[in-house]
C-alpha cells in the first residue's frame, strides 16, 4: 500500500523546557486507521498539531508524498470540542473550512452539502450551532474536516466529551465515513476500548518527560467488531498491560 505520510524523528517541546515528545517515527499507509493512546501529558494532541502544520517541531520531519491539490487540504483536524463558529449557520461552518481552497462558490456549496448528507445533517444546514445537540455538533466538526477531502484526517479525542450511547453511535458513524470516503485516519484517544474498536493499528506513547513509542501493534480483528468477543477483550487487555507497564516503570503520569 502507498504511504500517505512519513513522520520521522519528531521531537516536540515548548520554549526551553524538556521535550514533551522525544521521538516519534511512523509511516501511515493509505486508507489505514491508526489510533494513538497514552497517558495524559505525553503530547498526543500536540503531535496532531505538529502533523497538521500548526506547530513547528523541535526536530524531525513530516513528509506527505502526495501531489499538491489546490482543491484539497493535506490534513484536516477534528477537535475535541466541536469548535463551531456561533455566528455562522451549520452550512456556514462547513463552508469555513473550504474558503481557502481554490474552488468556485458553487463547488464549495456542493461539497458542503455532500458532507452534510454524509453525516446525515443536510436538513440542519440553515440552523445555528446552539440549536444542535452535542453529538450533532460533533458530526459537523467531522463534516467540516471531511469537506476539504484531506489526505489524512486527524482526530483529537473527538468523542471523549459525549455520553456513552452517543459515543458508540458516532464511532460506528466514523467507520462508515472512513469506508465511504477512503480517507486515512490518525485518531488520538485515551479510551482503550475505543482504540481497539476503531483502529487497524494502535501506537502506545509513554515516558515523561520525553515520551516515545512504547508499543506499536496491529489489531487484526474482523469488522464489524464485537465488543463482547473474546478477541476484542484480549486486545483491550494487551493494551492495558502495555500501559500499566509504562506506569509501573516509573515513567507514567
Amino acid at each position, binding site marked *: 500500500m502507498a504511504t500517505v505520510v512519513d513522520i520521522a524523528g519528531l521531537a516536540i517541546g515548548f520554549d526551553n523546557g524538556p521535550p514533551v515528545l522525544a521521538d516519534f517515527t511512523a509511516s501511515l499507509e493509505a486508507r489505514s486507521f491508526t489510533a494513538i493512546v497514552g497517558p495524559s501529558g505525553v503530547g498526543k494532541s500536540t503531535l496532531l498539531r505538529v502533523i497538521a502544520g*500548526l506547530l513547528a517541531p523541535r526536530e524531525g520531519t513530516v513528509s506527505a508524498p502526495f501531489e499538491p491539490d489546490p482543491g484539497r487540504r493535506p490534513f484536516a483536524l477534528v477537535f475535541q470540542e466541536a469548535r463551531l463558529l456561533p455566528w455562522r449557520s451549520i452550512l456556514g461552518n462547513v463552508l469555513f473550512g473550504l474558503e481557502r481552497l481554490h474552488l468556485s462558490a458553487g463547488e464549495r456549496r456542493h461539497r458542503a452539502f455532500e458532507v452534510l448528507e454524509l453525516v446525515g445533517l443536510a436538513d440542519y444546514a440553515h440552523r445555528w450551532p446552539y440549536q444542535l445537540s452535542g453529538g450533532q455538533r460533533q458530526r459537523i466538526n467531522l463534516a*467540516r474536516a471531511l469537506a476539504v477531502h484531506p489526505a489524512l484526517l486527524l482526530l483529537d479525542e473527538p468523542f471523549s466529551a459525549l455520553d456513552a450511547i452517543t459515543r458508540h453511535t458516532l464511532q460506528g458513524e466514523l467507520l462508515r465515513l472512513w469506508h465511504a470516503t477512503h480517507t486515512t485516519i490518525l485518531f488520538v484517544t485515551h479510551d482503550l476500548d475505543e482504540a481497539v474498536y476503531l483502529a487497524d493499528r494502535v501506537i502506545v506513547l509513554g515516558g515523561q518527560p520525553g515520551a516515545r513509542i512504547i508499543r506499536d501493534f496491529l489489531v487484526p480483528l474482523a469488522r464489524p467488531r464485537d465488543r463482547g468477543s473474546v478477541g476484542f477483550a484480549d486486545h483491550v487487555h494487551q493494551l492495558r498491560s502495555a500501559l500499566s507497564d509504562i506506569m509501573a516503570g516509573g515513567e507514567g503520569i
Partner: protein
Amino acid sequence: MNRRGWLAAAGLATFLLGWEAVPRLGLVPALLLPPPSSLPAAFWREITGGWWLDATLHSLGHYTMGLLLGTGLGVALGVAAALWNDLDRFLSWVIRLLRPVPGLAWVPFAIVWFGISEAAATFIIVIGVLWINFYASYGAARAVDKDLIELAEAFGHKGVWRQLVPIVLPASASGILAGVRTGLGQAWMAVVAAELFGIPGLGQRMMQASSLLATDVVVVYMITIAVCYGLTDIVFVWLRDRILSWQR
C-alpha cells in the same frame, strides 16, 4: 398594565409631582426651579420661534458626524492595537497621556484649530467617544478565544488579515457594540459641551436661555437631549439585536 409598569409610572408621577410642588409651595422661587407645568408653553414658544428645530438639527448633525468619526477611529485603533503587539507597545504611553484629558479641556485647541465651527464641535465629540470605543474594542479583540484562531489556522486562514473578518470581528462584536452604546450617551454630553462656546445647536441655545434666566427654556432643551438620547439608544439596541441575532 403589570406591576412593573405601574411602579415605573408611579415613580415618574411622584417625581413630577414633587418637582411641581417645590416651586408652587414657594420652597424655591420658580425662576430657580421652573415647575413642569410651565414647560409646554416654553416648548411651544421655542417651536413657533423656529429655534427648537434649528438647534436640534444642528446638534444632530454634530452628533452624527462626531459619533461616526470617533466610534470608527476608536474601534479601528482598539482592534488594531489588540492584534498587533508592536502597535500596542508603540501607542501605550501616548494613550496613557491623552486618555485622561477630558473633552472640555480640548475646547481652547478646538477653537484655535478649527475656529467657532462645525468642525470644532465634531472634534470635541470625537474626543468624547474615542477612548471608550478604543478600550472596549481593544479588550474585546484581545479576548477572542484562541481556540477559534487555531481553528482558522487549521483550515488555512493564516495571518491576522485573513482572520480579521471571519473570526476577530464577529467574536468581539458583542464587546465592541457595548462600547459603541456607552459612546452614544457620552456623545450627547459632548455635544452640549462643544456647543456651549457658541457653535449653533442645543448647547448654544441653552447657554443663551440661561444668560436670560429663562430657566424653563433650559429645561425644555434638557428634556430634548434626554429624548434624543433615548431614541438613539432604542434604535441602537434594535440594530444590535439584529447584528447579534446568532446569540442565544
